[in-house]
């Protein structure tokens, strides 16, 4: 079976498993490698969002290293029923596993549990469904991102000021980024006042309207924190039109926001390491689908659970500024791929 080791680290991991596995010695093939046709699916909502591109690229790279196939799936809409329908349709195909970005946590509990019960492993990434039986969750540390953003705002604008947040209620990672920053500011910098908080749900038009109103109502506004890049696009446009001196910080990155960073319209973006997320997301999923290759020191297997479970894996985050913006150019990254 042809194997393309694009990652030296992963090649080492696979080599270690190969040498450690008695089965590998007997058959000349590692049990960790995919059988022909073994397919892993990555399922998302708002599938045209550029965030998924490097995640899926790394997901594919990891799959290639194990000789597996991949499919990109989901819904182009921000619609929970459509994403669940697409996920259930994915499960019908009996894939080896699904790397899932659940739009909301609770509605996915039953669909994930049904997939697990059918022997299809599910790993969540970037957003979670913690009450489900998903085998692993990989994301950046949203508390750490929020703390970093808060400290940066204070570093740039001093110990007192006014700030606003836009939010996307219901999506766990976005909620954490906002609530953690607000809590951190309250606890550590009481001189900072939260003067605006609007739900814009990743909609740049809604963010434009909300930010316009916030800036008009609060002419002394010093900073804004936005948990995702879609809303940031609209918010920056509103701030520029108003001519306001507002420090803009947001999470994630899109090509549009990268241009704003290059132009100095946005101070910085905190971007989860998408490549690590996709690559390690696949590895977590693949190991969950092959739990027999090792014997962890736990009771999960005898208790009827998949022994390979990771409650939380941190893929880290990068800080994007004017200085390093070129390293986050998605078009350059995807050229010739």
């Amino acid at each position, binding site marked *: 079976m042809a194997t393309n080791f694009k990652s030296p680290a992963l090649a080492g991991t696979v080599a270690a498993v190969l040498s450690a596995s008695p089965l590998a010695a007997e058959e000349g093939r590692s049990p960790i490698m995919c059988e022909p046709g073994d397919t892993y699916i990555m399922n998302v909502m708002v599938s045209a969002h550029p965030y998924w591109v490097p995640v899926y690229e790394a997901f594919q790279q990891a799959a290639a290293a194990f000789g597996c196939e991949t499919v990109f799936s*989901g819904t182009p809409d921000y619609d929970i029923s459509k994403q669940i329908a697409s996920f*259930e349709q994915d499960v*019908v195909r009996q894939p080896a596993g699904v790397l899932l970005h659940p739009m909301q946590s609770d509605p996915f509990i039953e669909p994930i549990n049904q997939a697990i019960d059918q022997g299809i492993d599910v790993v969540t990434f970037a957003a979670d469904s913690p*009450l489900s039986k998903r085998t692993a969750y990989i994301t950046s540390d949203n508390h750490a991102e929020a703390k970093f953003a808060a400290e940066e705002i204070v570093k740039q604008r001093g110990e007192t000021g006014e700030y606003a947040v836009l939010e996307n209620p219901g999506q766990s990672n976005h909620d954490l980024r906002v609530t953690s920053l607000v809590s951190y500011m309250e606890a550590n910098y009481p001189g900072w006042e939260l003067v605006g908080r609007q739900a814009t749900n990743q909609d740049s038009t809604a963010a434009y309207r909300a930010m316009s109103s916030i800036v008009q109502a609060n002419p002394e506004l010093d900073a804004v924190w936005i948990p995702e890049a879609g809303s940031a696009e609209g918010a920056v446009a509103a701030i520029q039109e108003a001519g306001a001196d507002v420090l803009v910080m947001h999470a994630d990155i899109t090509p549009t926001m990268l241009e704003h960073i290059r132009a100095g319209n946005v101070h910085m973006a905190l971007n989860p390491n998408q490549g690590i997320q996709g690559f390690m997301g696949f590895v977590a999923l693949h190991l969950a689908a092959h739990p027999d290759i090792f014997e962890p020191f736990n009771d999960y297997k005898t208790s009827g659970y998949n022994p390979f479970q990771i409650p939380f894996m941190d893929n880290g985050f990068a800080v994007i500024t004017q200085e390093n913006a070129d390293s986050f150019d998605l078009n350059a990254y995807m050229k010739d791929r």
Partner: protein
Amino acid sequence: MQSGTDQAIGIDGTRQPKGPGVAKGLLKMRETGLIAIILLLVVVMSFASPYFLTWVNIRTVIMAFAVEGIVVVGMTILLISGGIDLSVGSVTALAMVIGGWLFLAGFDPWIASAIAIGCCTAVGAFMGFFVTKIGLHHFIVSLAVMVIARGICLLGTGGRPLGLYTLPPEFKFIGQGSLGPVPVVILTFIVIVVIFDILLRRTTMFRKVFYTGSNERAAAYSGIRTKRVIFATTTLCSTLCGVAGVIYMARFGSAQPTFGIGMELNVIAAAVIGGASLNGGTGTIFGAILGAALLSLVSSSLALLDVSVYWQDIIRGSILLAAVTIDLFLNKRRG
């Protein structure tokens, strides 16, 4: 009602077969064409994918449109009467939010759901009042209600989904349970479809819906209280949205204020593909459900064939365009 010697005007306003022309008439029925397309798709896909003709996939395909199909029933009846409702997505979300909010406030989930459905009925009556008494068009009234209902949802929840994981299992059963291999959602959907299909085909009360939609003035001259009919169909559509919202609430274990955005397009598309006319007077529940099934089958087939998700919207839109074009030509032939 008869026209000529070998055909009659059917309940849905189309020419129906009589006597030896049955086979010929069947060929002219929209449902026959849809059934043929669906069967062809099933045959092709059963060869193209080993997963297609499995019970798990069939269940998934039906589940994908079953709850929305309940709204399709209401929309079809409203379209036949000459109306349209753009607020179905918002009103469905409203039912979820009201039901969820009351449950979290301590109400029994069944009582909370009954109140939620009642509120949706009131919303429908509100729209019906503005259409029949004030004289506004359905399009404008339902557009306004779509925005108002969405605003109430966001206001009532602070924009956040209500977590209803603590709903009792007996209530969740209506959204997540199964009787044997068949999900309760599908059984509920079938019961509602059969009831309203029979009512629409067999009862005098619902026959008035066709007459009102075909020619409101003529229907009024013949003694039908057309405004009452329009009021009733508008209210019924919103009530069925309430039923769908409660089932969604039980299925998802949450109530989302942003749920159902764009639902009106899917629902209207299904009804029109199934033969309902935007000009009123024509359509069947069975046809509309076939339309919904066709759209769901297409989505399922494309997913199983690894076709990009973006093709689904293009193909869905193309099917809708073809259906409306066929409807236009059929109407021209009927004069």
